[in-house]
C-alpha cells in the first residue's frame, strides 16, 4: 500500500539578516494511512515548520511532498487551499477559534469554503460537534467555553470536512492534565475510525499515546 504522506529530502531555510537558518535539513519520511505519529523535539528543532509543510501552509525550500500520489508543491495556490479544505484538518495549541463566531459557526468554517457546497452544512457541523461531545454548547462563543471545550470545537472543525490527515500542533499544551487526557482519548478514537493523526508535542506522555515517534533536532530527524 502507498503511504499517505511521503516527504522526500525536504529542506527549509529562513533568511535572518545575512544569516541563513536551516529550519529543516534533508527530512525524508513516510506516514501510512491510519497511523498515529508524534513529532518530538526541543523548541526550535523545526517541528512546527515540518507540520506547516505537511499542512500545505508553508513551502519547503527544496524537496518533494507527495500526499497520496499528488505532488503538493507543484500545485496552484487554489489547489493548495482545496487540499487544506478537504484533506487536512488542523488543531492548534491556542485553539485558534474565531472569537465572534459560535461553536457551530466555527465548526462550519471549512464547510463555508468547500468548492461543492453541502446541501445542509449546519447539520454536518452539528454532527461533528456531537461527535466530540459538545452537542449541548453549539451556540456558545469561544469565550463562554472552557479550554478543553474550545479544543473540542477545534477538533470538530478539523474533522468536519472528513479529512485524511489530522495535524495537531501541541494540542494539549494549553490544557490541564485531565482535559489533556480527554483530548488525547478523542484523537485516539478518531484515529481508530481511520484518520491519520500527526501531532507535535514536547510532552513525552502525550507522545507515548502515538504508535511512532519522530524525533527532530536542529532540523534533522534523529530518531524514528
Amino acid at each position, binding site marked *: 500500500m502507498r503511504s499517505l504522506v511521503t516527504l522526500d529530502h525536504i529542506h527549509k531555510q529562513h533568511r535572518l539578516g545575512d544569516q541563513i537558518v536551516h529550519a529543516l535539513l534533508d527530512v525524508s519520511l513516510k506516514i501510512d494511512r491510519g497511523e498515529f505519529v508524534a513529532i518530538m523535539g526541543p523548541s526550535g528543532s523545526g517541528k512546527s515548520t515540518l507540520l506547516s509543510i505537511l499542512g500545505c501552509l508553508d513551502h519547503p525550500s527544496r524537496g518533494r511532498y507527495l500526499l497520496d500520489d499528488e505532488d503538493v508543491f507543484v500545485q496552484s495556490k*487554489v489547489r493548495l487551499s*482545496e487540499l487544506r*479544505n478537504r484533506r487536512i484538518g488542523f488543531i*492548534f495549541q491556542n485553539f*485558534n*477559534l474565531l472569537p465572534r463566531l459560535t461553536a457551530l459557526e466555527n465548526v462550519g468554517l471549512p464547510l463555508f*469554503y468547500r468548492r461543492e*457546497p453541502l446541501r445542509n452544512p449546519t447539520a454536518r457541523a452539528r454532527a461533528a460537534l456531537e461527535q466530540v461531545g459538545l452537542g449541548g454548547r453549539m451556540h456558545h462563543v469561544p469565550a463562554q467555553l472552557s479550554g478543553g471545550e474550545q479544543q473540542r470545537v477545534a477538533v470538530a472543525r478539523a474533522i468536519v470536512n472528513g479529512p485524511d490527515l489530522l495535524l495537531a500542533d501541541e494540542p494539549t499544551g494549553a490544557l490541564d492534565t485531565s482535559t489533556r487526557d480527554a483530548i488525547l482519548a478523542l484523537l485516539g478514537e478518531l484515529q481508530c475510525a481511520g484518520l491519520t493523526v500527526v501531532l507535535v508535542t514536547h510532552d513525552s506522555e502525550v507522545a507515548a499515546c502515538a504508535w511512532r515517534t519522530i524525533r527532530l533536532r536542529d532540523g534533522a530527524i534523529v530518531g524514528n
Partner: protein
Amino acid sequence: MRTFSYIYLAFRSVRAHILRSILAVTGIVIGVAAVLIVVAVAEGARAEISRQINSLGSNLLLVQPGAQVAQGVRQQAGTILSLTAGDAIAVARGVPEVVVAAPFVGEQKTTISGDLNWSTLVAGVTPGFFEAREWRLAEGQLFNDDQVALAAKIAVIGRTVARELFRGSDPLGRFVRIERSSYLVIGTLAEKGQDFTGRDQDDVMFIPLSSARIFTIGRSQANLDVVHSILVKTESAQSMPAAETAIARVLRQRHKIVGRKADDFRIQNLIQVAQTRDRAYRQFTLLVSTLAGISLLVGGIGVMNIMLVSVTERINEIGIRLAFGARPQDIRRQFLLEAVLLCTIGGLLGLIVGYACARVVPWALGWPIEFNEAMALIAVACSSLVGTVFGLLPAERAARLDPAVVLRSA
C-alpha cells in the same frame, strides 16, 4: 447564496466594530450629504430661474430705445425716446413672424386708495401686452381695444398692489388715484412672482396706453406717441432670429437710418438673458458639487485607512480562514465586500442626513430647495464605487498574506 453569506459576514464584521465603522464612514456621510445639499440648493435656484423664465412668457423680444451719444459718451439705454406706438403697429404689420407687438410706457408713481398709498410701477399698455406676457387674470376683466381707444380711466392691478392698497378687501369696482386722476379697478392679475432680476412682477398697475399718456405718464413730453419699449412676441422660438432682423429693418426704415449709421434702438431676447443666467448657475452647481464629490473621495481614503488597520488586526482570522481552505480570492472578496458595505452604509446615512438638511434649509434660510432623487441614487452608488476602489488595496493585501507567516505570528 454564497454572496449573501459574504454580505452577512461583512455585516457582522461592521457591526462588531460599530464605533470604528461609524468613524470610518463619517467622511462618506459628509461627502454624500454635502453633494445632496449643494445639488438641492442649486436645483432649487435653477427651478426658480426656470419658473421666472416661464413667467416672462415665451418667444419674447424687447425693443428699447437706443443710447444717446453725448459728445462721444454713450448714455444709458432709453435716454433717447426714439420709439413710438406707431413703430409697434408697423412692426406688427410689417413682420410676418410677429404675433403681437405691444407698446409700453411705465413710471414709478404713488398710488392712493382711501387712506393707503403705495409707490408702484404704473404701466400704460394695450391688451396685446397681456397676451405677450401670458398674464392671466385672477378676478374681473382686462381692458379691451375699445377702452384703450377711448382712453378709459380703468386699471388692472397686480397682486402686490391689490394687497398694499386694499388690505384684503375686494379691489374690484374701487378707485385708485394717481396724482389728480382716478382709475376704476376692473381686474386683478394672477401672481407671477419675481423676475430673474429679482423684481416683484406683481408690484404693478396697468392702465390703457392712451390714458397713461394723456393723464399720467410723460405729459411733459412733446410727442405723445412716444413709448418706453415695445414687447414683441414671435410665433415660435425658431423664428426669433429672423424676426429680430426684420424688426430692425422696419425700424431703421421708419427712423430713416441709412447705411452704416448705428441703430437708435436695441433688440433683446429676454429668454436668452435668463438662459445665460441659468447656464452660469449650472456651471456653478457643477463646480460646487465637484468639490463636494472630492470630500467623498477623502471619505474613501478614510475607509481605506480603517480597512488597512483592520487587515493587520485580523491577521489571525485571515490565517485561520486560509488554514481551513479559504482561497486568496475568498479573502479578497470578504474584505472588498466589507469596504463596499461600509461605504454603502455611509452613503445611506449621508442620504438621510442630506435629506434632513434639505428639509431644514428652506425652513431655516428661506431658500427654495429641490431635492433630486436621481442625484441621491447616484451619490449612494458613488459611495459604493468609492468603497470598491478604496477597498481594493486592503483586500489585495489581505489576500496576499502567507498562511504560514500569519499563523506563526498568531
